[in-house]
């Protein structure tokens, strides 16, 4: 067995070393057991695989291309930079991979309704899309602060027939949206599946969500071998909950010479306390059903996170990342708002790709990585999402005046007028 297979052997019953597990109200335990059983049966069932692969090909548009970023690469010390183009998926990000997988599973389980939490809105849009396609009712919980930051995605979800519930508790962001979705699920579990959007939460979610995103890593591995004739020196991704990163990492985890690099949100700077840098400034604890790295005070109260990117603005992280961090298999670094936005602009101008602000954190990381690994090193970045949803935020950041005031557009769309 390889080293990582030995490590994987320790990954038993929903745990990743000391991380993961299930910290949930008893009312949810049976539902999680049933979900785990249905998931295991589904992934062993060729029909399910064929159905999902068919949707990925004909609906999502997979495989997504692997694009050499020639001009952006010049700013990365001439490293060979490749973008895994999850931004070209239907709905504009990697999130559709998991949403289709889970909603298909929910349908198999006889559920008639799905719920989801969303931060940037991409997972909410992906779930609303999958629910529309497969004919399930859909409700999406979103922090009120995020409904304002991501008004365009709120409108998209409504157009897709989903109910969007603005959460006004706590910090009014992703963390609070997850609390509300869990509360809904406890009361509705007979009819409803909770489509958790990232590799966090109680077992089996981290395993299941990674599984549905592992297509990113599989494709990337094949594609880079075909283009470069060798494995990359590093694969990189931004890490909020960490689903796009886990999807990419999973294709290379057994290749010890491929470095795994994750970039979390440094916000205003880790030293300011206004950030979402769980590995730099958090510690092991329990949040939303799993043990992982958490931003918390000495009493175990969650500290609200901060980031210009709604999708990375979360005080916890997937438990498998916590384990990859502790074992040293993956390395995580914070990227501040300003550095991310600089990379956002650079990518837009050099490659003609406006990335999601989440993804821009990974782009900033790749610029550093190119300097570290040297010219001609081969680096694959998961270009996890496109930046259409972020145009208003970016315009404000760069001082570009919009013809209509941003709030004017937002309100009209958000209220579906």
């Amino acid at each position: 067995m390889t080293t990582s297979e030995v490590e994987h052997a320790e990954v038993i019953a929903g745990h990743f070393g000391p991380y993961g597990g299930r910290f949930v109200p008893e009312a949810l335990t049976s539902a999680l057991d049933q979900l785990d059983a249905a998931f295991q049966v589904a992934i062993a069932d060729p029909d399910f695989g064929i159905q999902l692969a068919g949707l990925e090909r004909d609906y999502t548009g997979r495989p997504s291309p692997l694009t050499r970023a020639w001009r952006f690469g010049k700013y990365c010390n001439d490293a060979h930079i490749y973008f895994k183009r999850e931004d070209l998926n239907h709905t504009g990000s990697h999130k559709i991979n998991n949403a289709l997988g889970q909603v298909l599973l929910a349908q198999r389980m006889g559920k008639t309704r799905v719920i989801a939490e969303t931060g940037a809105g991409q997972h909410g849009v992906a779930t609303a899309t999958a629910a529309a396609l497969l004919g399930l009712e859909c409700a999406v919980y979103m922090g009120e602060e995020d409904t304002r930051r991501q008004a365009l995605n709120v409108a998209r979800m409504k157009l897709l027939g989903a109910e969007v519930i603005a959460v006004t508790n706590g910090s009014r962001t992703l963390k609070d949206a997850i609390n509300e979705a869990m509360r809904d699920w406890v009361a509705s579990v007979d009819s409803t599946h909770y489509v958790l959007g990232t590799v966090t939460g109680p077992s089996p979610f981290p395993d299941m969500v990674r599984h549905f995103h592992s297509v990113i890593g599989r494709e990337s591995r094949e594609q880079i071998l075909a283009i470069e004739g060798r494995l990359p020196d590093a694969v990189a991704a931004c890490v909020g909950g960490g689903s796009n990163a886990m999807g990419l990492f999973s294709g290379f985890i057994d290749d010890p010479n491929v470095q795994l690099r994750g970039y979390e949100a440094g916000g205003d700077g880790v030293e300011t306390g206004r950030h979402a840098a769980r590995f730099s400034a958090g510690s092991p604890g329990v949040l939303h059903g799993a043990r992982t790295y958490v931003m918390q005070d000495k009493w175990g109260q969650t500290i609200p996170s901060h980031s210009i990117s709604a999708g990375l603005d979360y005080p916890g992280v997937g438990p498998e990342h916590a384990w990859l961090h502790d074992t040293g298999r993956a390395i995580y670094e914070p990227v501040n708002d300003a550095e991310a936005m600089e990379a956002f602009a650079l990518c837009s101008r050099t490659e003609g790709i406006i990335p999601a602000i989440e993804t821009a954190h990974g782009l900033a990381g790749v610029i550093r990585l190119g300097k570290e690994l040297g010219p001609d090193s081969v680096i694959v970045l998961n270009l996890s999402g496109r930046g259409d949803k972020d145009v208003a935020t970016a315009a404000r950041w760069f001082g570009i005046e919009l013809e209509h005031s941003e709030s004017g557009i937002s309100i009209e769309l958000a209220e579906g007028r």
Partner: protein
Amino acid sequence: MNPTKTGTIRRAFSDAKSEGRALLIGYLPAGFPTLDQSIELVQAMCDGGVDLIEVGLPYSDPLMDGPVIQQAVDQALTNGATPESVLRVVKAVADRGIVPVVMSYWNPIEQFGVENFARELQQAGGVGVITPDLTIEEGQPWIAAAEAHEIDPIFLVAPSSTNERISKICHDTRGFVYAASTMGVTGARDQVSNMAPELVDRVRQCTDLPIAVGLGVSNGVQAAEIAQYADGVIVGSAFVKAATAGGVAAVLELARELAQGVRQGG
């Protein structure tokens, strides 16, 4: 009080049973709305006839709680509630001769230190801890620490729990079994779920531990109804609501009404 606390909770249940009634259990978050006021409020609960008090440890992400308790713990946290506040309230309850237990989500206990928490709670006079998001699978280190400090670890069962799970949960639970009457979060409801009697029945077949029913109980009539089939009646959100609306006087009045209720049904 008996210097050996193990068994305090069970004795409270058997004393109530010998009086032909159910045990009345009340919940209030420590530090709500302030530490001093929360002590006055639990004292009113004690004076009004509550037999066992669940002192809540306020937590930032209470995912099993409805809006009433969410707002109360937010207020408590804003006003500086810490585990220290919880221990102070526990001590105040013990000093009144009433049985104190703590209700806490898991992370604050893990960060305090499992062993330290059990020891300090024992020193404050606490005799049990209810952990609404700790499964028995993850709870084994806690169960060992609790046992070492004569603290009863109290776990929940739900209508969705299989008989096999109920049996495992009862095996690891001490003091009493907390039966969540409904699939949902905390909060007063007009009617107590009709799933509760069936759940209590299933738990009875697994254990001789006392069984208390919570979630949704808000008045004397409901308390009387539950007292007909359960050993204890748990009231949470209704006390928080009363405290918000009418302070100590309203809490005392509610406690009296419920205390009468558990005596009518038993």
